[in-house]
């Protein structure tokens, strides 16, 4: 038999009641907060997980903000590039119109005036600012106006930097292109070489753009075709050395004496006429427009001048086609980036949902289980209270009279 002391009876009964109260309070707090973990000590591993998950959720939210920003910047770039494309297309149409033999010096001057407008428009596009007042096409130097018109053409003051935005911990996407990339670094000529006729040519020879037959054989240099007689010419390299002499000339027939490329001259050159075939770097869109305007404003009183004009038109059309292709390419790239941003956004969104559901699984309470536990605790507590009051009623002294 266990002997029970009277004070122990009370002490144990009260301490049991207190204990039950405190577990009930804990369940109540869990129910009220909806959280299973009230302090990290309740579940150390779980709460460390929650910290990590919360940070991860915060970064997915940040990446979602970044993606929104990337989309808006890329959208803006795309809009401007579309307008630039239309501008180029219009100038191309005007150029074709101007090259038509029916044009007079006056009508060409009219066309030149419109192209002048288009050039202003193009410079405006190139100086587009975003919502924060930053220049879109300035590279890193986004607070300084990148393109300025000078007497020597349009000058680029920006740089070749490109801004990136983080879409995830290990993926960054460019949210724009520098003005250099879009407007300046346009391949000149046909992308490999550029042809031109000498200003002083007296004949009606017009050189065509030409094309590359074998890039491996092409040796970049500034070649020239010099007519030694109306039906013979020689080829010189950049140093002036003759690399092919006495080549017979036939109008509109491919000349393939320079390794890797071919081109044709059409018309009737005279002795001493020169044509150049030079390796080309890039050529900015503005100088293409400028050159075109100058050509359109130059009167063509002679066949030689007319031939020079036709050569210029050929050159301009080639450059405009290059420009169109180039702008299309950049638009495609920007579009690709937008796709990539969208893909990442939806992946990110899914990751965030997954993370949130993991976090909820770790830290949130299972209401059904908690409520039934609370009910149990309440019943036990009431039973303890009731039995305690019964037990403490009993005392032998009550019976000693």
């Amino acid at each position: 038999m266990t002997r029970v002391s009277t004070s122990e009876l009370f002490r144990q009964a009260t301490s049991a009641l207190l204990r039950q109260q405190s577990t009930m309070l804990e369940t109540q707090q869990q129910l009220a907060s909806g959280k299973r973990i009230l302090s990290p000590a309740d579940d150390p591993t779980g709460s460390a997980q929650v910290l990590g998950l919360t940070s991860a959720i915060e970064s997915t939210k940040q990446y979602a903000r970044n993606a929104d920003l990337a989309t808006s910047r890329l959208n803006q770039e795309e809009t401007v590039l579309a307008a630039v494309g239309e501008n180029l297309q219009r100038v191309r149409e005007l150029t074709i119109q101007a090259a038509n033999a029916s044009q007079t010096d006056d009508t060409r001057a009219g066309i030149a005036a419109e192209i002048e407008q288009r050039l202003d428009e193009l410079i405006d596009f190139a100086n587009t600012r975003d919502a924060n007042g930053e220049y879109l096409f300035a590279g890193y130097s986004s607070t300084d106006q990148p393109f300025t018109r000078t007497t020597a053409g349009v000058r680029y003051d920006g740089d070749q930097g490109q801004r990136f935005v983080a879409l995830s911990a290990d993926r960054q996407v460019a949210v724009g292109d520098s003005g250099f990339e879009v407007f300046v670094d346009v391949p000149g000529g046909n992308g490999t070489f550029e042809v031109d006729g000498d200003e002083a040519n007296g004949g009606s020879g017009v050189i065509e753009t030409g094309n590359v037959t074998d890039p491996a054989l092409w040796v970049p240099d500034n070649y020239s075709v010099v007519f030694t007689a109306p039906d013979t010419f020689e080829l010189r390299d950049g140093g002036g050395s003759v690399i092919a002499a006495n080549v017979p000339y036939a109008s509109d027939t491919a000349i393939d004496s320079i390794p890797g490329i071919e081109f044709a001259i059409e018309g009737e050159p005279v002795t001493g006429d020169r044509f150049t075939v030079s390796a080309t770097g890039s050529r900015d869109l503005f100088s293409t427009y400028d050159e075109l305007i100058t050509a359109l404003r130059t009167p063509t009183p002679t066949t030689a001048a007319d031939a020079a004009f036709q050569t210029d038109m050929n050159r301009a059309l080639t450059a405009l086609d290059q420009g169109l292709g180039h702008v299309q390419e950049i638009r495609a790239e920007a579009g690709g980036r937008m796709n990539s941003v969208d893909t990442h956004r939806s992946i990110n969104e899914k990751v965030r949902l997954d993370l949130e559901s993991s976090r909820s699984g770790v830290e949130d309470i299972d209401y059904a289980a908690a409520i039934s536990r609370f009910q149990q605790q309440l019943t036990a507590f009431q039973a303890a209270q009731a039995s305690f009051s019964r037990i403490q009623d009993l005392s032998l002294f009550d019976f000693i009279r």
Partner: protein
Amino acid sequence: MTSGIFGTATSALLANQRALGTTGHNIANANTDGYSRQTVDFATREPFETGDGFIGTGVQVDAIRREYDRFIANSLTEAISAHAGQSELAGLAAEVDNLVADSGSGLNSALDGLFGAWQDLANDPTSMAARTALLSEAGTVASRFGGIDARLDELEARVQARVSTTVAEINETASSLADINREITLAQGGADGSPANDLLDERDRLVNRMGELVGITTHAGDDGMIDVFVGRGQPLVLGTDAMTLTAGDIRLDPGAPQVSVAGTDGTVDLTGLLDGGRLGALVEFGGRVLEPARNAIGRVAHGLVDAVNDQHRLGLDLDGNLGGDFFNPVADTVRVVPGSSNAGNAVIDATVTDVSALTTSDYRLTRSGGAYTVERLADGQTTDVSAAFGGGPPASVTVDGMQLSFNAGSLADGDRFEIQPTRNAAAAVAVALPDGRSIAAAGPIRSATDPANTGTAAVSQPEVASTANLPLSGSGGPIELVYDAAANQFDVNGGPGGTLAYDPATDSTGRSYTFPAYGEMSFTVSGTPADGDRLVIEDNTGGQGDNRNALAIAGIAGSGVLEGGNATLGRAYGSLVAEVATRTREARSAEAAQATRLDAARGRREEIAGVNLDEEAANLLRYQQAYQASARVVSVANELFDSLLQAVRG
């Protein structure tokens, strides 16, 4: 004959009176803590020898003794000790636990906010609003570090004060025990060895009180006195003598014993030997929870400040200047405390040189037998630094990412220096930048290809790892790479000069180069350059829209800054939270277990020594009846005597 009956009855009256008195004492003390129920031992008196045989002469009280079991009393003391310790520990640990994990005061949300603000700045590097927001987030991080550290510091001061008051209470209790030992011996000696029940109870109460303060063992001597021992058998009370414990201030002298006792052969350091009780818990809390937590937070502070500052210095601010410190540097917050008993005059300094190698431990530099040793206190691992320090100052040595410099003076044998590499860093975190313009979001240099190039060569934007020879305008201007097709190489004009081999046939997919002397810049060239093509690397003048450095700093959130590159800042903080939570949980469940054990021990003691009022009521009736019966015997004897007198009177 009647005198025999009177004698017998009177002895019974007296004995039962004693018994009634003792029952009354029991009832009176039913609720007295630590009271042991007393019982009266009755014994027959020596019988009277007659021709008829032995005639009983009544009853006598042999002893009034308390119901007591030494074994049970000892196990109660132990349970009290263990429970008091765990409950103290659980309470203190919970404070740290709630502090570090709370989303309002914890660091995680502030770090998320800071790196989020860097991302926002990267998204919009010219925006003053984003810059101001970033500075404010950085201020939040700094104040979180400061806030947590201040709370922990305050807790440390509180613990230190509590150690002192507990030691004082222990000393007081020890001298009370010595006194009561003396009183008990005197009392029991004066009463022919009868137990001094209430004094014994009082002493047990003191022993239990002592157990609550510190873990003890007791030994009962034959002379009725008990001896009390702490730690591993260090005497605290020996008979009528009490020793005095001394509390050291570990905040002023971290290497000194926190608790010591003066023994016969010198002072004994009890710090590591205490087990249980409030004092044991306080010492354990300091060493296992509080200090590691402060060190871990300090280490995160070191990591954050170093990583952000290092990257920030590599950038350009809105005015085109190289970035300064983003946060005030904390590398020099390492605390070096010379031992209080050092005989030498050595001057030792320490600074953090590599945060990724930092640990959360404290260190101790000692000279012993001519050898210089640095001990990592957390795990006792030692590093012999005699080679560096043996030759005297100036000398320096690097241990776990921290450089110790022996600047002047000398160490005597036995001298020690306590080193706390990370303890004070969190309090020192503060934003150093004056305004948003000085946030360095841009990279310092940029690359460009010449529009006149006829080849397809491209060059990536260079990355830098130092500011050596930056900006380039101060070290010869832009660096130009000009391609020499015949030699398959770039001639480098400016910068380090020389040539870079580049063969388009094999390298056109990209080849990387580094100029170690020029900002350790690295860049990749790809494509097919034509002869004479130029690539340029120049200062990023006017590059206010550049966000490369902001992106790099935002990336610190996900990079392994600590533990040799294995732990991000968030992760390191998370593992601190988990560690504190685990300790708290341990203490909490140990407290619950000890509460059960204490309940059981108390129940067992009460089983024997507790007063049950029903039992006492029964005893009351029992002794009352015996008393009444004895009184009746007296009256019967009286009647017998009366009838005899009447017979004589006739």
